[in-house]
Protein backbone atom coordinates (compact mmCIF):
# COMPACT_ATOMS: atom_id res chain seq x y z
CA UNK A 1 0.00 0.00 0.00
CA UNK A 2 1.24 3.43 -0.88
CA UNK A 3 0.24 5.99 1.72
CA UNK A 4 -1.59 9.15 0.74
CA UNK A 5 1.41 11.16 1.76
CA UNK A 6 3.66 9.17 -0.55
CA UNK A 7 1.12 9.51 -3.35
CA UNK A 8 1.22 13.27 -2.91
CA UNK A 9 4.99 13.20 -3.19
CA UNK A 10 4.83 11.01 -6.28
CA UNK A 11 2.31 13.40 -7.82
CA UNK A 12 4.80 16.24 -7.41
CA UNK A 13 7.24 14.30 -9.61
CA UNK A 14 4.55 13.28 -12.10
CA UNK A 15 3.68 16.96 -12.59
CA UNK A 16 7.16 17.63 -14.03
CA UNK A 17 6.64 15.51 -17.14
CA UNK A 18 4.36 15.93 -20.15
CA UNK A 19 0.94 14.30 -20.18
CA UNK A 20 1.17 10.64 -21.02
CA UNK A 21 4.76 10.51 -19.76
CA UNK A 22 3.94 9.78 -16.11
CA UNK A 23 6.28 6.79 -16.13
CA UNK A 24 9.20 9.24 -15.99
CA UNK A 25 8.34 9.53 -12.30
CA UNK A 26 8.87 5.82 -11.65
CA UNK A 27 12.39 6.18 -10.25
CA UNK A 28 11.32 8.71 -7.68
CA UNK A 29 8.14 6.78 -6.93
CA UNK A 30 10.27 3.75 -6.07
CA UNK A 31 12.62 5.90 -4.00
CA UNK A 32 9.67 7.32 -2.07
CA UNK A 33 7.95 4.01 -1.34
CA UNK A 34 11.28 2.40 -0.45
CA UNK A 35 11.91 5.10 2.11
CA UNK A 36 8.44 4.68 3.56
CA UNK A 37 9.04 0.94 3.82
CA UNK A 38 12.18 1.31 5.94
CA UNK A 39 14.70 1.24 3.12
CA UNK A 40 13.81 -1.69 0.91
CA UNK A 41 11.34 -2.73 -1.78
CA UNK A 42 9.25 -5.86 -2.23
CA UNK A 43 7.13 -7.19 -5.06
CA UNK A 44 3.95 -5.85 -3.53
CA UNK A 45 5.33 -2.31 -3.51
CA UNK A 46 6.62 -2.69 -7.04
CA UNK A 47 3.15 -3.73 -8.15
CA UNK A 48 1.59 -0.84 -6.25
CA UNK A 49 3.85 1.64 -8.03
CA UNK A 50 3.03 0.02 -11.37
CA UNK A 51 -0.65 0.33 -10.68
CA UNK A 52 -0.39 3.91 -9.48
CA UNK A 53 1.60 5.04 -12.52
CA UNK A 54 -0.39 2.80 -14.88
CA UNK A 55 2.73 0.97 -16.02
CA UNK A 56 3.27 -2.73 -16.71
CA UNK A 57 4.61 -4.29 -13.49
CA UNK A 58 7.53 -5.78 -15.40
CA UNK A 59 8.71 -2.31 -16.47
CA UNK A 60 8.76 -1.17 -12.86
CA UNK A 61 10.50 -4.39 -11.86
CA UNK A 62 13.17 -3.70 -14.52
CA UNK A 63 13.84 -0.24 -13.13
CA UNK A 64 13.81 -1.49 -9.54
CA UNK A 65 16.47 -4.09 -10.29
CA UNK A 66 18.62 -2.00 -12.63
CA UNK A 67 19.53 0.87 -10.34
CA UNK A 68 21.87 0.52 -7.40
CA UNK A 69 19.89 2.54 -4.88
CA UNK A 70 16.96 0.14 -4.59
CA UNK A 71 17.28 -2.60 -2.01
CA UNK A 72 15.47 -5.88 -2.32
CA UNK A 73 16.36 -7.21 1.11
CA UNK A 74 15.72 -5.50 4.44
CA UNK A 75 18.46 -3.06 5.45
CA UNK A 76 19.46 -1.41 8.70
CA UNK A 77 17.69 1.71 9.89
CA UNK A 78 20.77 3.55 8.73
CA UNK A 79 22.71 2.39 5.69
CA UNK A 80 26.36 3.38 5.57
CA UNK A 81 27.15 3.48 1.88
CA UNK A 82 30.92 3.44 1.76
CA UNK A 83 32.79 4.39 -1.40
CA UNK A 84 35.64 2.02 -2.20
CA UNK A 85 36.56 3.41 -5.62
CA UNK A 86 39.98 4.69 -6.64
CA UNK A 87 40.28 8.12 -4.99
CA UNK A 88 38.85 6.86 -1.70
CA UNK A 89 40.92 3.67 -1.90
CA UNK A 90 44.11 5.69 -2.33
CA UNK A 91 43.18 7.44 0.89
CA UNK A 92 42.49 4.38 2.98
CA UNK A 93 38.83 3.46 2.47
CA UNK A 94 39.60 -0.28 2.64
CA UNK A 95 41.08 0.02 6.11
CA UNK A 96 38.09 2.04 7.29
CA UNK A 97 35.60 -0.45 5.87
CA UNK A 98 37.42 -3.29 7.69
CA UNK A 99 37.42 -1.22 10.87
CA UNK A 100 33.69 -0.67 10.52
CA UNK A 101 33.01 -4.35 9.88
CA UNK A 102 35.00 -5.33 12.97
CA UNK A 103 33.39 -2.72 15.14
CA UNK A 104 29.85 -3.57 14.11
CA UNK A 105 30.47 -7.29 13.82
CA UNK A 106 28.97 -7.37 10.32
CA UNK A 107 30.26 -7.87 6.81
CA UNK A 108 29.40 -5.42 4.06
CA UNK A 109 25.90 -6.17 2.86
CA UNK A 110 24.76 -7.32 6.31
CA UNK A 111 22.61 -5.69 8.97
CA UNK A 112 23.85 -5.25 12.55
CA UNK A 113 22.13 -7.47 15.15
CA UNK A 114 20.15 -4.58 16.61
CA UNK A 115 18.92 -3.66 13.13
CA UNK A 116 20.34 -0.18 13.45
CA UNK A 117 23.07 -0.16 10.82
CA UNK A 118 24.02 -1.90 7.60
CA UNK A 119 27.17 -1.34 5.61
CA UNK A 120 27.31 -1.33 1.86
CA UNK A 121 30.35 -0.90 -0.38
CA UNK A 122 29.42 1.36 -3.26
CA UNK A 123 31.09 2.78 -6.34
CA UNK A 124 32.13 6.42 -6.73
CA UNK A 125 29.70 8.82 -5.05
CA UNK A 126 31.21 11.91 -6.67
CA UNK A 127 32.89 13.44 -3.63
CA UNK A 128 36.42 12.29 -4.43
CA UNK A 129 38.20 15.32 -2.97
CA UNK A 130 36.61 14.38 0.38
CA UNK A 131 37.69 10.74 0.35
CA UNK A 132 37.47 8.48 2.18
CA UNK A 133 33.77 9.17 2.41
CA UNK A 134 30.40 7.56 2.97
CA UNK A 135 26.75 8.42 2.59
CA UNK A 136 24.15 7.99 5.32
CA UNK A 137 20.66 9.03 4.30
CA UNK A 138 20.87 12.33 2.46
CA UNK A 139 24.19 13.22 4.04
CA UNK A 140 27.75 12.81 2.83
CA UNK A 141 30.44 12.34 5.46
CA UNK A 142 33.86 13.22 4.09
CA UNK A 143 37.54 13.03 5.10
CA UNK A 144 36.67 10.09 7.33
CA UNK A 145 38.96 8.73 10.01
CA UNK A 146 38.40 6.05 12.64
CA UNK A 147 37.61 8.73 15.19
CA UNK A 148 35.09 10.40 12.93
CA UNK A 149 33.45 7.06 12.23
CA UNK A 150 33.21 6.31 15.96
CA UNK A 151 31.57 9.65 16.44
CA UNK A 152 29.11 9.12 13.59
CA UNK A 153 28.15 5.68 14.88
CA UNK A 154 27.58 7.00 18.39
CA UNK A 155 25.13 9.53 17.05
CA UNK A 156 23.04 7.06 15.08
CA UNK A 157 19.91 6.19 17.00
Amino acid sequence: MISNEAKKEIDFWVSKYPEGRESSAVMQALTIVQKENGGSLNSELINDVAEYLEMPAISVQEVATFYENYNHKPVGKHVLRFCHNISCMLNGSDELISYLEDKLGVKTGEVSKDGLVSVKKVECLGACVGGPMCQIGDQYHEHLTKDKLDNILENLT
Partner: protein
Amino acid sequence: MNEVCFKNLDKENPASIATYEANGGYKVWRKILNGGFTPDEIIQELKTSGLRGRGGAGFPTGLKWSFMPRNQEGQKYVVCNSDEGEPGTCHDRDILRYNPHSVIEGMAIAGFVMNATVGYNYIRGEFMEPYYRFEEALKDAYEAGLLGKNLLGSDVSFDLYTHLGAGAYICGEETALLESLEGKKGQPRFKPPFPANVGLFGKPTTINNTETFASVPEILSRGGQWFADLGVENSGGTKCFSVTGSVKNPANFEVPMGTPFSKLLELAGGLKEGRKLKAVIPGGSSTPVLPAETAMNMTMDYDSIANAGSMLGAGSVIVMDDTTCMVKTLTRLAHFYYDESCGQCTPCREGTGWLYRMLQRILDGNGKEEDLDLLLSVGEKIMGNTICALGDAAATPVESFIKHFRDEFEYYIQNGRSMVEEEHNLVEEEASV
Protein backbone atom coordinates in the same frame (compact mmCIF):
# COMPACT_ATOMS: atom_id res chain seq x y z
CA MET B 1 41.98 30.91 -10.95
CA ASN B 2 38.22 30.37 -10.49
CA GLU B 3 37.20 32.85 -13.16
CA VAL B 4 34.11 31.26 -14.69
CA CYS B 5 32.20 28.41 -13.04
CA PHE B 6 33.75 28.89 -9.60
CA LYS B 7 33.84 32.68 -9.71
CA ASN B 8 31.52 33.19 -6.74
CA LEU B 9 33.10 30.50 -4.64
CA ASP B 10 34.81 32.87 -2.21
CA LYS B 11 31.74 35.09 -1.73
CA GLU B 12 29.32 34.91 1.14
CA ASN B 13 26.26 32.78 0.25
CA PRO B 14 27.74 31.92 -3.16
CA ALA B 15 24.64 29.95 -4.21
CA SER B 16 22.13 32.72 -3.60
CA ILE B 17 20.44 34.60 -6.42
CA ALA B 18 21.49 37.88 -4.80
CA THR B 19 25.17 36.96 -4.95
CA TYR B 20 24.77 35.69 -8.48
CA GLU B 21 23.07 38.84 -9.73
CA ALA B 22 25.44 41.14 -7.85
CA ASN B 23 28.26 39.55 -9.83
CA GLY B 24 26.75 39.93 -13.26
CA GLY B 25 24.48 36.89 -13.19
CA TYR B 26 21.31 36.84 -15.33
CA LYS B 27 22.59 39.89 -17.20
CA VAL B 28 22.80 37.88 -20.42
CA TRP B 29 19.43 36.25 -19.87
CA ARG B 30 17.79 39.63 -19.29
CA LYS B 31 19.46 40.99 -22.42
CA ILE B 32 18.09 38.06 -24.40
CA LEU B 33 14.60 38.58 -23.00
CA ASN B 34 14.85 42.22 -24.04
CA GLY B 35 15.71 41.22 -27.58
CA GLY B 36 19.42 42.02 -27.34
CA PHE B 37 20.82 38.73 -28.64
CA THR B 38 19.82 36.47 -31.52
CA PRO B 39 20.29 32.68 -31.46
CA ASP B 40 22.80 32.90 -34.31
CA GLU B 41 24.87 35.49 -32.47
CA ILE B 42 24.96 33.24 -29.41
CA ILE B 43 26.05 30.20 -31.40
CA GLN B 44 28.75 32.32 -33.07
CA GLU B 45 30.08 33.53 -29.70
CA LEU B 46 30.18 29.96 -28.42
CA LYS B 47 32.07 28.83 -31.51
CA THR B 48 34.55 31.69 -31.04
CA SER B 49 34.97 30.79 -27.36
CA GLY B 50 36.26 27.32 -28.16
CA LEU B 51 34.06 25.85 -25.41
CA ARG B 52 34.04 22.07 -25.67
CA GLY B 53 31.76 19.65 -23.83
CA ARG B 54 33.09 19.37 -20.30
CA GLY B 55 31.53 15.99 -19.54
CA GLY B 56 34.39 14.13 -21.14
CA ALA B 57 33.87 13.91 -24.88
CA GLY B 58 35.03 17.46 -25.59
CA PHE B 59 32.64 18.08 -28.47
CA PRO B 60 32.46 21.79 -29.47
CA THR B 61 29.37 23.24 -27.78
CA GLY B 62 28.58 25.89 -30.41
CA LEU B 63 28.56 23.21 -33.09
CA LYS B 64 26.35 20.93 -31.01
CA TRP B 65 23.82 23.70 -30.49
CA SER B 66 23.83 24.50 -34.20
CA PHE B 67 22.73 20.92 -34.99
CA MET B 68 19.35 21.42 -33.36
CA PRO B 69 16.47 21.89 -35.80
CA ARG B 70 15.36 25.04 -34.03
CA ASN B 71 12.72 25.93 -36.61
CA GLN B 72 11.13 22.51 -36.61
CA GLU B 73 7.64 22.58 -35.15
CA GLY B 74 6.81 20.84 -31.90
CA GLN B 75 8.35 20.42 -28.49
CA LYS B 76 12.11 20.42 -28.08
CA TYR B 77 14.13 19.86 -24.91
CA VAL B 78 17.29 20.97 -23.17
CA VAL B 79 18.80 18.45 -20.76
CA CYS B 80 21.64 18.94 -18.32
CA ASN B 81 23.78 15.97 -17.42
CA SER B 82 24.51 16.30 -13.69
CA ASP B 83 24.92 12.55 -13.29
CA GLU B 84 28.51 13.04 -12.19
CA GLY B 85 30.03 9.66 -11.45
CA GLU B 86 33.31 9.17 -13.27
CA PRO B 87 35.64 7.98 -10.51
CA GLY B 88 37.83 10.91 -9.50
CA THR B 89 35.35 13.59 -10.60
CA CYS B 90 33.41 15.87 -8.27
CA HIS B 91 33.48 19.42 -9.59
CA ASP B 92 29.94 19.47 -10.98
CA ARG B 93 28.78 18.79 -7.45
CA ASP B 94 30.44 22.04 -6.39
CA ILE B 95 28.96 23.96 -9.30
CA LEU B 96 25.49 22.73 -8.28
CA ARG B 97 26.12 23.54 -4.64
CA TYR B 98 27.84 26.89 -5.03
CA ASN B 99 26.82 28.28 -8.41
CA PRO B 100 23.45 26.72 -9.31
CA HIS B 101 22.16 29.84 -11.03
CA SER B 102 24.89 29.66 -13.67
CA VAL B 103 23.51 26.24 -14.66
CA ILE B 104 19.97 27.59 -14.72
CA GLU B 105 20.97 30.60 -16.81
CA GLY B 106 23.06 28.45 -19.18
CA MET B 107 20.17 26.06 -19.70
CA ALA B 108 17.67 28.88 -20.21
CA ILE B 109 19.95 30.43 -22.84
CA ALA B 110 20.20 27.04 -24.55
CA GLY B 111 16.42 26.82 -24.50
CA PHE B 112 16.18 30.19 -26.23
CA VAL B 113 18.79 29.30 -28.85
CA MET B 114 17.19 25.98 -29.68
CA ASN B 115 13.60 27.07 -29.29
CA ALA B 116 13.08 24.58 -26.48
CA THR B 117 10.67 25.66 -23.79
CA VAL B 118 11.33 22.86 -21.32
CA GLY B 119 14.52 21.70 -19.64
CA TYR B 120 15.46 18.94 -17.23
CA ASN B 121 18.49 18.80 -15.01
CA TYR B 122 19.28 15.13 -14.37
CA ILE B 123 21.07 15.03 -11.00
CA ARG B 124 22.46 11.76 -9.69
CA GLY B 125 20.28 10.31 -6.95
CA GLU B 126 22.94 10.48 -4.24
CA PHE B 127 23.49 14.22 -4.70
CA MET B 128 20.82 15.29 -2.22
CA GLU B 129 22.60 18.40 -0.95
CA PRO B 130 23.18 19.66 -4.53
CA TYR B 131 19.58 18.72 -5.35
CA TYR B 132 18.12 20.78 -2.50
CA ARG B 133 20.44 23.67 -3.38
CA PHE B 134 19.41 23.51 -7.02
CA GLU B 135 15.70 23.33 -6.16
CA GLU B 136 16.10 26.39 -3.94
CA ALA B 137 17.77 28.22 -6.82
CA LEU B 138 14.96 27.20 -9.18
CA LYS B 139 12.38 28.57 -6.78
CA ASP B 140 14.24 31.88 -6.57
CA ALA B 141 14.62 32.10 -10.35
CA TYR B 142 10.87 31.50 -10.82
CA GLU B 143 10.06 34.11 -8.18
CA ALA B 144 12.32 36.61 -9.92
CA GLY B 145 10.36 36.03 -13.12
CA LEU B 146 13.39 34.55 -14.87
CA LEU B 147 11.83 31.15 -15.49
CA GLY B 148 8.31 30.36 -16.63
CA LYS B 149 6.08 31.58 -19.42
CA ASN B 150 6.39 34.82 -21.44
CA LEU B 151 9.34 35.97 -19.42
CA LEU B 152 9.62 39.69 -18.69
CA GLY B 153 6.81 40.27 -21.16
CA SER B 154 8.63 38.62 -24.05
CA ASP B 155 7.44 35.66 -26.11
CA VAL B 156 10.21 33.54 -24.58
CA SER B 157 9.20 30.74 -22.18
CA PHE B 158 11.38 28.30 -20.32
CA ASP B 159 10.38 25.84 -17.62
CA LEU B 160 13.08 23.91 -15.82
CA TYR B 161 12.74 20.80 -13.65
CA THR B 162 15.11 18.52 -11.82
CA HIS B 163 15.06 14.77 -12.23
CA LEU B 164 16.84 12.51 -9.75
CA GLY B 165 18.69 9.35 -10.72
CA ALA B 166 18.94 6.22 -8.60
CA GLY B 167 22.52 5.05 -8.89
CA ALA B 168 23.83 4.00 -12.30
CA TYR B 169 27.11 5.25 -13.76
CA ILE B 170 25.90 4.44 -17.26
CA CYS B 171 23.26 7.18 -17.04
CA GLY B 172 26.07 9.69 -17.58
CA GLU B 173 26.04 8.45 -21.19
CA GLU B 174 23.65 10.86 -22.84
CA THR B 175 21.24 8.41 -24.47
CA ALA B 176 21.17 6.20 -21.36
CA LEU B 177 20.34 9.36 -19.45
CA LEU B 178 17.42 10.00 -21.78
CA GLU B 179 16.14 6.46 -21.31
CA SER B 180 16.40 6.93 -17.56
CA LEU B 181 14.59 10.26 -17.78
CA GLU B 182 11.79 8.41 -19.54
CA GLY B 183 11.52 6.04 -16.59
CA LYS B 184 13.38 3.07 -18.06
CA LYS B 185 16.56 1.12 -17.43
CA GLY B 186 19.50 3.31 -18.35
CA GLN B 187 20.67 1.48 -21.44
CA PRO B 188 22.31 3.53 -24.21
CA ARG B 189 20.55 3.91 -27.53
CA PHE B 190 21.94 3.24 -30.97
CA LYS B 191 23.14 6.38 -32.72
CA PRO B 192 22.08 7.68 -35.19
CA PRO B 193 19.55 9.06 -34.75
CA PHE B 194 21.29 11.53 -32.47
CA PRO B 195 19.41 13.27 -29.66
CA ALA B 196 19.37 16.50 -31.70
CA ASN B 197 16.86 14.75 -33.94
CA VAL B 198 15.30 12.07 -31.74
CA GLY B 199 15.96 12.76 -28.08
CA LEU B 200 13.82 12.93 -24.96
CA PHE B 201 10.28 11.58 -25.56
CA GLY B 202 11.30 11.27 -29.21
CA LYS B 203 11.77 15.02 -29.60
CA PRO B 204 14.86 17.03 -30.61
CA THR B 205 17.04 17.41 -27.52
CA THR B 206 20.36 18.97 -26.64
CA ILE B 207 22.27 17.49 -23.74
CA ASN B 208 25.24 19.19 -22.16
CA ASN B 209 27.17 18.68 -18.99
CA THR B 210 26.73 20.87 -15.89
CA GLU B 211 30.06 22.66 -16.29
CA THR B 212 29.36 23.34 -19.96
CA PHE B 213 26.06 25.06 -19.20
CA ALA B 214 27.60 26.91 -16.26
CA SER B 215 30.27 28.37 -18.57
CA VAL B 216 27.82 29.80 -21.09
CA PRO B 217 26.55 32.93 -19.27
CA GLU B 218 30.06 34.19 -18.52
CA ILE B 219 31.17 33.55 -22.10
CA LEU B 220 28.29 35.58 -23.50
CA SER B 221 28.75 38.26 -20.89
CA ARG B 222 32.46 38.78 -21.56
CA GLY B 223 32.67 37.57 -25.14
CA GLY B 224 33.76 34.38 -26.83
CA GLN B 225 37.20 35.80 -27.59
CA TRP B 226 37.81 36.63 -23.92
CA PHE B 227 37.08 33.03 -22.98
CA ALA B 228 39.16 31.59 -25.81
CA ASP B 229 42.11 33.75 -24.76
CA LEU B 230 42.01 32.39 -21.22
CA GLY B 231 43.06 29.02 -22.59
CA VAL B 232 45.27 27.78 -25.39
CA GLU B 233 44.70 26.82 -29.02
CA ASN B 234 42.03 24.16 -29.40
CA SER B 235 41.21 24.35 -25.69
CA GLY B 236 39.44 27.58 -24.95
CA GLY B 237 38.75 28.93 -21.50
CA THR B 238 39.11 27.50 -18.06
CA LYS B 239 38.38 24.00 -16.84
CA CYS B 240 37.46 22.65 -13.44
CA PHE B 241 39.79 19.91 -12.29
CA SER B 242 39.30 17.56 -9.36
CA VAL B 243 42.70 16.64 -7.98
CA THR B 244 42.53 13.56 -5.78
CA GLY B 245 44.56 10.62 -4.57
CA SER B 246 47.99 10.89 -3.00
CA VAL B 247 48.12 14.66 -2.61
CA LYS B 248 48.22 16.76 0.55
CA ASN B 249 45.12 18.82 -0.20
CA PRO B 250 42.72 17.12 -2.60
CA ALA B 251 40.40 19.78 -4.02
CA ASN B 252 38.66 21.22 -7.06
CA PHE B 253 40.43 23.95 -8.99
CA GLU B 254 39.24 25.96 -11.95
CA VAL B 255 42.34 26.90 -13.93
CA PRO B 256 43.02 28.09 -17.48
CA MET B 257 43.39 25.35 -20.05
CA GLY B 258 47.08 24.86 -20.72
CA THR B 259 48.08 25.11 -17.06
CA PRO B 260 51.07 22.82 -16.46
CA PHE B 261 50.20 19.63 -14.59
CA SER B 262 53.03 20.41 -12.19
CA LYS B 263 51.27 23.66 -11.25
CA LEU B 264 48.01 21.85 -10.58
CA LEU B 265 49.85 19.35 -8.41
CA GLU B 266 51.37 22.24 -6.50
CA LEU B 267 47.93 23.79 -5.96
CA ALA B 268 46.84 20.53 -4.36
CA GLY B 269 49.74 20.79 -1.94
CA GLY B 270 52.00 18.38 -3.78
CA LEU B 271 52.49 14.74 -2.95
CA LYS B 272 51.81 13.46 0.54
CA GLU B 273 54.75 13.73 2.91
CA GLY B 274 57.67 11.49 1.93
CA ARG B 275 56.02 10.15 -1.20
CA LYS B 276 57.17 10.28 -4.80
CA LEU B 277 54.98 10.72 -7.86
CA LYS B 278 54.46 7.44 -9.65
CA ALA B 279 51.56 7.83 -12.04
CA VAL B 280 48.66 10.08 -12.97
CA ILE B 281 45.25 9.43 -14.49
CA PRO B 282 44.52 12.86 -15.97
CA GLY B 283 40.85 12.68 -16.96
CA GLY B 284 39.00 10.19 -14.79
CA SER B 285 39.16 6.43 -14.51
CA SER B 286 38.24 5.90 -18.18
CA THR B 287 41.35 7.67 -19.47
CA PRO B 288 44.80 6.03 -19.84
CA VAL B 289 47.19 6.23 -16.90
CA LEU B 290 50.49 8.06 -17.49
CA PRO B 291 53.86 7.53 -15.79
CA ALA B 292 55.16 10.36 -13.59
CA GLU B 293 57.68 11.79 -16.02
CA THR B 294 55.19 12.02 -18.89
CA ALA B 295 52.63 13.67 -16.62
CA MET B 296 55.12 16.21 -15.29
CA ASN B 297 55.79 17.37 -18.85
CA MET B 298 52.20 17.83 -19.94
CA THR B 299 49.91 20.81 -19.68
CA MET B 300 46.23 20.49 -18.85
CA ASP B 301 44.55 20.90 -22.24
CA TYR B 302 43.09 18.57 -24.85
CA ASP B 303 46.08 18.47 -27.20
CA SER B 304 48.90 18.24 -24.69
CA ILE B 305 47.24 15.40 -22.77
CA ALA B 306 46.45 13.62 -26.04
CA ASN B 307 50.10 13.97 -27.09
CA ALA B 308 51.13 12.52 -23.74
CA GLY B 309 49.00 9.48 -24.54
CA SER B 310 45.85 10.10 -22.54
CA MET B 311 42.74 12.28 -22.51
CA LEU B 312 41.51 15.34 -20.65
CA GLY B 313 38.18 13.56 -20.12
CA ALA B 314 36.17 15.07 -17.30
CA GLY B 315 39.20 16.78 -15.74
CA SER B 316 39.61 14.28 -12.96
CA VAL B 317 43.23 14.07 -11.98
CA ILE B 318 44.02 11.00 -9.92
CA VAL B 319 47.51 11.06 -8.43
CA MET B 320 49.32 7.89 -7.43
CA ASP B 321 52.55 7.65 -5.45
CA ASP B 322 55.40 5.16 -5.08
CA THR B 323 53.45 3.11 -2.53
CA THR B 324 50.47 2.57 -4.86
CA CYS B 325 50.10 -1.02 -6.04
CA MET B 326 49.06 -0.81 -9.68
CA VAL B 327 47.66 -4.36 -9.70
CA LYS B 328 45.31 -3.58 -6.85
CA THR B 329 44.37 -0.21 -8.32
CA LEU B 330 43.54 -1.64 -11.73
CA THR B 331 41.53 -4.45 -10.16
CA ARG B 332 39.43 -1.87 -8.34
CA LEU B 333 38.77 -0.01 -11.58
CA ALA B 334 37.95 -3.24 -13.39
CA HIS B 335 35.44 -4.06 -10.65
CA PHE B 336 33.82 -0.70 -11.20
CA TYR B 337 33.20 -1.25 -14.91
CA TYR B 338 32.07 -4.82 -14.28
CA ASP B 339 29.59 -3.50 -11.73
CA GLU B 340 28.38 -0.66 -13.93
CA SER B 341 28.13 -2.36 -17.32
CA CYS B 342 24.44 -2.11 -18.27
CA GLY B 343 24.46 -5.59 -19.77
CA GLN B 344 23.15 -4.63 -23.18
CA CYS B 345 26.17 -5.51 -25.37
CA THR B 346 27.77 -8.92 -24.97
CA PRO B 347 31.43 -7.83 -25.36
CA CYS B 348 31.07 -5.37 -22.48
CA ARG B 349 28.76 -7.44 -20.26
CA GLU B 350 30.95 -10.54 -20.50
CA GLY B 351 34.29 -8.84 -21.12
CA THR B 352 34.19 -6.58 -18.06
CA GLY B 353 33.52 -9.68 -15.95
CA TRP B 354 36.46 -11.50 -17.51
CA LEU B 355 38.76 -8.54 -16.91
CA TYR B 356 37.73 -8.20 -13.30
CA ARG B 357 37.87 -11.91 -12.49
CA MET B 358 41.28 -12.35 -14.09
CA LEU B 359 42.71 -9.39 -12.23
CA GLN B 360 41.20 -10.58 -8.97
CA ARG B 361 42.76 -13.99 -9.61
CA ILE B 362 46.17 -12.35 -9.96
CA LEU B 363 45.51 -10.37 -6.79
CA ASP B 364 44.59 -13.58 -4.98
CA GLY B 365 47.97 -15.03 -5.92
CA ASN B 366 46.63 -17.41 -8.54
CA GLY B 367 47.72 -15.53 -11.67
CA LYS B 368 49.19 -17.33 -14.67
CA GLU B 369 51.89 -16.23 -17.09
CA GLU B 370 49.44 -16.01 -19.97
CA ASP B 371 46.98 -13.83 -18.06
CA LEU B 372 48.48 -10.51 -19.14
CA ASP B 373 48.17 -11.25 -22.84
CA LEU B 374 44.70 -12.64 -22.24
CA LEU B 375 43.70 -9.44 -20.42
CA LEU B 376 44.92 -7.35 -23.34
CA SER B 377 43.16 -9.60 -25.80
CA VAL B 378 39.84 -9.39 -23.94
CA GLY B 379 40.23 -5.60 -23.81
CA GLU B 380 40.83 -5.46 -27.55
CA LYS B 381 37.72 -7.49 -28.20
CA ILE B 382 35.57 -5.09 -26.17
CA MET B 383 37.04 -1.96 -27.81
CA GLY B 384 34.85 -0.60 -30.56
CA ASN B 385 32.37 -3.45 -30.35
CA THR B 386 29.76 -1.89 -28.11
CA ILE B 387 26.97 0.66 -28.47
CA CYS B 388 28.45 3.16 -26.03
CA ALA B 389 31.87 4.11 -24.70
CA LEU B 390 31.67 2.22 -21.39
CA GLY B 391 33.24 -0.84 -22.97
CA ASP B 392 36.19 1.19 -24.26
CA ALA B 393 36.40 2.88 -20.89
CA ALA B 394 36.78 -0.50 -19.20
CA ALA B 395 39.46 -1.69 -21.60
CA THR B 396 41.49 1.54 -21.61
CA PRO B 397 42.85 1.36 -18.05
CA VAL B 398 43.75 -2.32 -18.50
CA GLU B 399 45.75 -1.59 -21.62
CA SER B 400 47.54 1.45 -20.20
CA PHE B 401 48.28 0.01 -16.73
CA ILE B 402 49.85 -3.10 -18.28
CA LYS B 403 51.72 -1.06 -20.87
CA HIS B 404 53.40 1.21 -18.33
CA PHE B 405 53.66 -1.07 -15.30
CA ARG B 406 53.99 -4.53 -16.82
CA ASP B 407 56.83 -5.50 -14.46
CA GLU B 408 54.54 -5.05 -11.46
CA PHE B 409 51.93 -7.34 -12.96
CA GLU B 410 54.54 -9.94 -13.88
CA TYR B 411 56.01 -9.82 -10.39
CA TYR B 412 52.57 -10.31 -8.86
CA ILE B 413 51.89 -13.31 -11.11
CA GLN B 414 55.26 -14.91 -10.40
CA ASN B 415 55.38 -14.27 -6.67
CA GLY B 416 51.75 -14.04 -5.67
CA ARG B 417 52.32 -10.75 -3.93
CA SER B 418 52.70 -7.05 -4.63
CA MET B 419 56.12 -5.79 -5.66
CA VAL B 420 55.34 -2.32 -4.42
CA GLU B 421 53.93 -3.31 -1.07
CA GLU B 422 56.87 -5.62 -0.54
CA GLU B 423 59.40 -2.89 -1.34
CA HIS B 424 57.51 -0.44 0.79
CA ASN B 425 57.31 -2.80 3.77
CA LEU B 426 61.03 -3.59 3.45
CA VAL B 427 61.87 0.08 3.57
CA GLU B 428 59.66 0.51 6.62
CA GLU B 429 61.21 -2.47 8.34
CA GLU B 430 64.70 -1.15 7.67
CA ALA B 431 63.69 2.23 9.00
CA SER B 432 62.34 0.72 12.19
CA VAL B 433 65.49 -1.34 12.86
